[in-house]
């Protein structure tokens, strides 16, 4: 099946975790109320239209140049959400070639060939995707169909560059008309509730709404947990000494030892080695909030050379001379540009085919697994500090919204089993990534045609990859499965939901995303069964265990289920899970049977007692 499943195989492929973008809940007849009348085009496409999805263009004479099965002729449909191609069947037995790509996944659209191009399929469109695929379509030169396809793709894939709006808004608007009676994913994360779960407020930490209108720091959340010893005025002064005013704020606290993880941006030391007594005092407050330790560890995610170089731009790192009782460590995680280049090489190695004889060297040369290793190693070091040595840790990089988020989120996942449940993981993403201002819009480029923008980077993807690595080392520790992670990645790009849009919490509030778009978690939590891990032992309330994965290239593997899923020859079936489910089902069946028998046995005992009572008058 190339390169995405046909409609009939969609359910099967979903089980195989190869495609999770389409779970249509409405029949196409609903869509006809809007689209059919306007365009006068009959709805004969086999995919189910989503609420708010409308046809934009349709061509019946397009050739898809499939990298696996060669050119196939068929029909191309463009809606405001997706590009859909389905080949005309040449032989009855052969399944059609289906391409189903959300427009949000498209990074770049280019024309190939001109009016004078010769050769078969040399005139058409090439589409570069963010999810490892490149697609090529060929058109006939005579009828100018390429121009309208190209224009519609540009306008709908990059609406922000054409004064349009993202599909998430149209989708939610249509959905609200029909009524969404189910789960509200926007309610998954409530900051004060999560802080209470962590034990805040307590003797040492308090919650503050100082940033309620995002005036102190526009990229931080409205609610912060900060040391009680720091007043609001004090916090304002500390913020001035941190890059982009991102001062240290609590991410997590060990309920047993009170050791904490706090996150921030780099201090504005500069080449002159500036100091700030408030910032120094503030770190002391964080250290003193943990009675178990008289030392504070700073985890600077950068290579030390990069941290030093940042002084030239006004930044820098905490000197151990200036900050008492502070130990600084550098974690050697490279910047967004290095990561972007690394992922580009992964794509080169994985799509459309792999050179088997050079496979391992090719992956080695991407450096991707070494970057993953560095992230895992950094997270494990944080875990060791917080869990084993009961030392509080402050994590930062340059601006504190890329590598810092990777480290805090991953180390929290290792430390706290709650974050390994489905809802807990959703909270983790909402808190450490969304509320603390990872710039999703800039890193992914939602609805934006600046494909070569230097701010693009797979930082969040790398985090999800790291989570997958941990789940491969600890198969029983996670409530969710691989399909869950792939679904999150797919909708990171798809623009169908509002969760990953915008750059900061402030922007999301200003755009009113909670009311104008649907949350990804609504979608996931309403059909939870397909995302659950059968190896997660339900009868032990989750593994109450701190995870320490091995951060070595020997223990880290390329995530084939994600990076190689478009090549049908590379997808291997999974046998083990099937057997696990059989055993679980068998166990449940027997438990129910025993339950019934025990109930019957109890009833029989009651009957015997009644008989005994009846017998007593005889005496």
């Amino acid at each position, binding site marked *: 099946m190339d390169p995405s499943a046909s409609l009939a195989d969609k359910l099967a492929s979903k089980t195989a975790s190869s495609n999770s973008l389409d779970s249509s809940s409405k029949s196409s007849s609903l869509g006809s109320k809007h689209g059919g009348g306007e365009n006068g085009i009959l709805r004969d496409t086999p995919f189910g239209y989503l609420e708010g999805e409308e046809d934009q263009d349709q061509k019946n004479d397009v050739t898809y140049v499939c990298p696996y099965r060669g050119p196939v002729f068929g029909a191309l449909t463009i809606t405001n959400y997706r590009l859909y191609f389905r080949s005309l069947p040449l032989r009855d037995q052969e399944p059609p070639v289906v391409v189903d790509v959300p427009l949000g996944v498209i990074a770049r659209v280019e024309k190939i060939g001109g009016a004078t191009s010769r050769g078969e399929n040399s005139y058409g469109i090439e589409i570069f995707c963010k999810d490892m695929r490149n697609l090529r379509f060929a058109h006939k030169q005579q009828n100018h169909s390429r121009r309208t396809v190209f224009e519609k793709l540009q306008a709908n894939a990059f609406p922000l560059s054409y004064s349009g709006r993202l599909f998430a808004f149209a989708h939610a608007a249509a959905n609200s008309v029909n009524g969404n009676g189910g789960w509200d994913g926007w309610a998954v994360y409530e900051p004060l509730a999560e802080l209470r779960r962590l034990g805040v407020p307590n003797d040492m930490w308090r919650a503050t709404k100082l940033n309620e209108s995002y005036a102190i720091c526009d990229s931080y959340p409205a609610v912060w947990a900060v040391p009680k010893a720091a007043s609001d005025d004090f916090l304002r002064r500390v913020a001035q000494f941190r890059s982009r005013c991102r001062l240290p704020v609590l991410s997590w606290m060990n309920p047993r030892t009170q050791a904490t993880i706090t996150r921030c941006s780099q201090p504005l030391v500069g080449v002159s080695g500036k100091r700030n007594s408030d910032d120094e005092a503030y770190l002391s407050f964080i250290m003193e909030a943990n009675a178990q330790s008289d030392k504070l560890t700073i985890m600077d995610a950068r290579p030390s050379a990069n941290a030093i170089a940042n002084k030239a731009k006004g930044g820098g790192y905490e000197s151990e001379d200036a900050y008492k009782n502070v130990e600084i460590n550098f974690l050697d995680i490279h910047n967004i540009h290095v990561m972007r280049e690394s992922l580009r090489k992964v794509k080169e190695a994985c799509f459309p085919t*792999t050179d088997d004889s050079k496979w391992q060297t090719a992956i*080695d040369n991407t450096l991707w697994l070494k970057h993953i290793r*560095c992230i895992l190693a950094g997270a494990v070091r944080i875990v060791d500090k917080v869990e084993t040595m009961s030392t509080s840790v402050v994590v930062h990089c340059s601006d504190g919204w890329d590598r810092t988020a990777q480290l805090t989120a991953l180390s929290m996942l290792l430390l706290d089993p709650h974050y390994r449940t489905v809802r807990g993981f959703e909270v983790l993403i909402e808190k450490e990534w969304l509320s603390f201002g990872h710039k999703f819009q800039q890193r992914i480029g939602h609805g934006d045609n600046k494909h070569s923008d230097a701010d693009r980077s797979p930082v969040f993807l790398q985090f999800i990859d790291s989570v997958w690595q941990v789940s491969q*080392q600890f198969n029983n520790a996670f409530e969710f499965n691989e399909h869950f992670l792939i679904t999150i990645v797919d909708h990171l790009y798809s623009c169908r939901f509002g969760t990953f849009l915008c750059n900061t919490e402030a922007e999301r509030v200003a755009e009113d995303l909670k009311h104008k778009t649907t949350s990804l978690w609504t979608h996931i939590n309403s059909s939870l069964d397909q995302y659950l891990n059968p190896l997660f032992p339900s009868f032990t309330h989750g593994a109450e*265990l701190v995870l320490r994965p*091995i951060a070595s290239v020997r223990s880290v593997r390329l995530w084939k289920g994600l990076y190689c899923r478009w090549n049908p020859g590379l997808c291997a079936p999974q046998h083990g899970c099937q057997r696990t489910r059989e*055993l679980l089902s068998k166990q449940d069946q*027997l438990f129910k049977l*025993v339950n019934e028998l025990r109930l019957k046995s109890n009833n029989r005992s009651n009957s015997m007692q009644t008989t005994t009572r009846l017998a007593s008058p005889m005496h």
Partner: protein
Amino acid sequence: MATGGGGSGHGGAGSAGNADHHKRNTFTSYVAPLPGDLRATADTNEWCLPSDLRDVHLAKPRLLHGEQIVASAPAYMYSPIDPMDSSGGSGSTLSAISSASGTPADRHHKEATFGLLSVTNFKLAFVPLHEKRNQAITAPLIDLYQENTYLGRNEITLNNIDHIYTITELGRAASALQAARGMASHAGMSRRKKLEPFKQQNISGRIAALHIVCKNFRLLKFAFQQQDSKMFGASDQGKLIASALVRFAYPMRHDLSFAYAHREPYYSTLGASGTSMYATKNDWARELIRCGATEWQVVSCASVQLLQNPLQAGKYTVPPHFVIPKSCSVDRFLDLSRAFCDSRAAFWVYSYGSSAALVRLAELQPAAQQDTKSENVMLELVRKCDAGRQLKLLQLTDRLPSIQDVLRAYQKLRRLCTPETPEKFMLQDDKYLGLLEKTNWLFYVSLCLRYASEASATLRSGVTCVLQESNGRDLCCVISSLAQLLLDPHFRTIDGFQSLVQKEWVALEHPFQRRLGHVYPAQPAGGNAELFDSEQSPVFLLFLDCVWQLLQQFPDEFEFTQTYLTTLWDSCFMPIFDTFQFDTQAQRLKAVTDSQLVLRPVWDWGEQFSDKDKMFFSNPLYQRQRGDLGAQAAAVAHRRSLAVGSKGAHGAASGVTPSRNTINPQLFATASSVPQDRYLQPAHRIFDLQVWDQCYYRWLPILDIRGGGQPQVDLYHRLLLSNIAKVQRCLDYQNFDDLPDAYYEFAGESRPNQHKDEKPDKEDEAEFVDGVERRRKPTAKAATPTSGLTSVTGNLQLSTLSSFFPFGNPIAGDAPLQLYDILSSSSELLMETSSFLDKSSIV
């Protein structure tokens, strides 16, 4: 000081040694005493040790029947690379941690364990000085992990030793401990040198340390105390050990192996219907019947007059029993086979479907290669056995690596898996995938799986497949075995797999002795090292790795586990068991008749392992189905073959010559009993393969995922089976007193507390949290513990297992009792001969 002339172990062992000494003169010269051994008595303070270490002479290893100590010395044993050293994953982290850990001397001492290092005629043994004192505390925990009855945790057999490196110091060294870590000392020069068998080693300088590289991927590092050079007659302890190792670990003849000295009698517990040894004509006949191979006949050398003639037999190197086309007379076949290397003309090994056969064939001898008539005649004879008259020849020599290629790949892979220092580990890790590719190991695994798939597809299409290799005894074994694994579910059971190994590797005479390096024959004059090395090659490991890959792709299709495969590789270097010790069956027979060797098949696992360890050989995901019951089919065939025997005798009396040589399967079932729908189609690209971490990485604690890895999944499945078995038993007996914890969780109840006496014990039970022992808070006696608490505690206790379990290092917190319960209950289902589905339908 141990002297070669007499054992210094137990009296019994000593007397046995004396007996051996009298019986065999060669033994005396073998263990001629070194000049350093001339001391009449061993002074306990001879080693000039500090007072607290003088008890080291008490740390003697446990000795087996016939085992003698040939050299002992106090030594420090270095632990393998520890996780803390490079958990940061970067060089700067290493230096930071080094500075944080204190002075280098302190770190070195923490890493090293002091004890007595002994060389016996069987093993290299290190006994920590304080082991006995700690034994009581650690024994229950160590029980969880694999224990071999013949080898302790810090012991390796001499057969397992591949390379011995000495680290010598030409000047006075600042610290001997530094040398062991491969670091250059400041005060002098150190040199790492490999000891070669047979070469006269004139080692200048003191041997400060030894590095032992094992064939099973283990690296052992020992350091020796620096001696005061002023002391008269002081011996170099490192040299003493190194000299003994060179002589005993690289024997020139096989009868110098410990197997010949170990005369403990063997009583077989293998059942007749279990593993087939392919040691008799009937064993092969049963397989012919099972496969429905009516066009083939078994030849037994004992019945062939030509092979009994001493003048003629020397021309042939055929195994005792083999299967040839029925249409060809034995004499003619043997005549044709002389043109082939090692007389390996077409030998049948398997049939599938109607008549498609799997045949092994050698290449023509170099002298005969110009004339291909013999080969053509042989192929035509094979073709006649195929109903469709079709045949496909797979020439393996051109497609697969040579045994030299396999050896080189293995050595590179092992170098990648045995870094001496954390720094070296990190250097490798930075370029790991590139280095792994350069070893070519996974490439060769990929090739083997590819051609095994091709062979099995050929048989599935009804075409006979002939595997041709130079002498048909190396890579032919790999492809043939794998093809049958892919086709036949019987070979995926434990008994079936063992029968397959017996058939393809032992009975058809893969030269284990040379390939595994059990013997180091003297080099001919002028011979070079490469010529010598070319005889060794871990072809069997290549096969096991391929099987492991199949196990990863089809986790519920195999009755055995990766632990079984790893243990099998370890058992190749256990000389006590004869299965993997000989090149030919004739050699094996000669060892028995000439040297009174006691034969012990490795398949009798109870000899090495307790029931607890053997449980980990069974795969909890496996479901036995009707087609897997080779044993029953074998039993039926056995009864029929008895009838054949009597008929054969009658035939002989009547003078029918052909019947005298063979059992005639045609008299019995002609249909194959092999199921046709249970074949496997593996992915065989390098892309699809993984590194067999349990076998290759288990000696690297740095890669141990505590509480993670495959063992957790395995134990989870065993827990499910345990729960199912318990509930099944409750239903059978209508008694609900012993339901598993998970049931009460499911029902939302608390487990009823019917045993009042148990409660005080439970309260005192230590609870392990993250490996730290804590007393559980005392609760009111009236309170009933909740099932949740029990489950959580139980889960915690399982969560510290090594990811290499049952290999790897045990640590505090592992809970034996719960694990035993899970294992014994789950094995009830695994061991049942009736199918799981049948059991399910009864409910």
